[in-house]
């Protein structure tokens, strides 16, 4: 049984006839970590907004475990979202920011536990403005995992961080993901980041965006951004599909089934 099924037939913004997304279809297994790579402006954020239900103005549908999401009377799915900016409430303390998304009575203990997971217990009473960028991302990560999401959406969550901080957050993310078994969609424009994190990478074309290449990553974990296996795979992708990062798969990929075509 498939976890997530996304079928976008056509998506354009109100008042415009130009399609942002067109015939964009893919599935993700339950518990799978899928990275989505594409040129900037290709509609990656729009795609996540559609899957999260923030944007419901489209032709198409989103299913999770065979249930239709974001239609009238649909049972709300547990979806976590880590945005590009941490988007914490600046007037709530770290602890209050986590409790905001919890309904349970014992939310203080749950929130404290989540803070322990991201090693932020000692700043629970700080306001987000008093934290560093990396710490704010950790709070945002804790907030997304704390409600035990079935589906976790991440929109370039680690851009504009220095390399060591990003690497620490990568490790933390993988640990929390393994514990939660959430299905993850991780949007990035950084191919190395995608290769070092994901079970599978989807490459999007430029506007209107569709999936041009769907590639499983077989490198065993733990991997790091600068591992030789990751570098080798990165180089071989760029060699075979020189324009993949600007949204073109190249002749070979389009003509044949691309699934699992490339291995190291």
């Amino acid at each position, binding site marked *: 049984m498939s976890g997530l099924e996304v079928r976008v037939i056509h998506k354009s913004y109100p008042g415009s006839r130009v399609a942002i997304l067109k015939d964009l279809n893919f599935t993700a297994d339950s518990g799978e970590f899928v990275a989505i790579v594409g040129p900037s402006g290709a509609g990656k954020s729009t795609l996540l907004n559609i899957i999260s*239900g*923030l944007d419901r103005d489209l032709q198409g549908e989103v299913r999770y475990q065979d249930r239709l999401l974001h239609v009238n009377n649909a049972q*709300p799915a547990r*979806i976590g*979202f880590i*945005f590009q*900016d941490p*988007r914490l409430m600046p007037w*709530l303390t770290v602890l209050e920011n986590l409790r*905001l998304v919890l309904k349970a009575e014992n939310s203080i203990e749950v929130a404290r536990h989540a803070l322990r997971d991201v090693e932020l217990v000692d700043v629970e009473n700080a306001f987000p403005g008093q934290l560093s960028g990396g710490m704010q991302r950790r709070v945002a990560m804790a907030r997304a995992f704390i409600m035990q999401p079935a589906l976790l959406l991440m929109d370039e969550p680690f851009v504009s961080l220095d390399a060591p901080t990003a690497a620490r957050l990568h490790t933390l993310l993988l640990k929390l993901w393994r514990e939660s078994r959430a299905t993850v969609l991780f949007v990035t424009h950084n191919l190395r980041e995608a290769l070092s994190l994901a079970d599978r990478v989807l490459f999007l074309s430029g506007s209107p965006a569709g999936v041009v290449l769907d590639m499983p990553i077989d490198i065993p974990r733990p991997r790091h951004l600068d591992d030789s296996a990751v570098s080798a795979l990165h180089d071989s992708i760029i060699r075979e599909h020189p324009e993949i990062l600007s949204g073109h798969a190249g002749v070979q990929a389009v003509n044949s089934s691309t699934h699992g075509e490339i291995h190291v």
Partner: protein
Amino acid sequence: MAQLTDSWLRFLSLAGFMLAWQVIAALVAEPLFPTPLTVLYRLWEFLTVGQLLHHLGITLARVAASFAIAMAIGAAIGIIMGRFQRLDATLDGVLVLALNIPALVTIFLCYIWFGLNEVAAVIAVALNKIPTVVVTVREGARAVDRQLMQVAEVFQVSGWRTLRQVYLPQLYPYLIAAARSGLALIWKIVLVVELLGRSDGVGFQLGTYFQFFDITSILAYTLAFAAVVLAAEAVFMRPLERRLVRWRT
């Protein structure tokens, strides 16, 4: 340390003002320009044997009632106008008109239509204040961060919690600004309303003393009134503001 310095500055400026008043009044030596000591003595008489506290209390009650009504209605209209663009465009003309109607006209109309009573007095004051609250709060509602509202939506935060912890905190600075300027305006208009159509309250008393050119009594009432305003600012507005924006460190 900075806190202390600020309060000292506040105190020193008031003390300097009093001193200048005393010196000038002593030089002029004229019954129509009493010294602050004369005024303070009169104030003491009013407090001990006169009815100042009674009138002050009535005026305060009117201020509180019209302030609460003006803030509640003004904030509600402001939020709705800031949120719905077409409604905003529809009501904007009326709002500009309401902003520019002289207070005196509203007061006369209320007294004529609703009678010379308490309800008319409070409505007249509130009507004068509502448009300015609307303008300030609308600005805040327009500036609400959609990205934070999306967070509440994705994480399925309940409507009530979203209002209290996500939406309203973004409006607090605007609500505080509206309350500040609101109090200042309402204090003044309440006195006019009392002068024109009530038989008690500070405004009525001032009117009576004006008939006799009793400057000392007028200033004594003014002093009592000013003391209340300063106290309200120090005890109520400033601590509230500090609490609501304490995250801005």
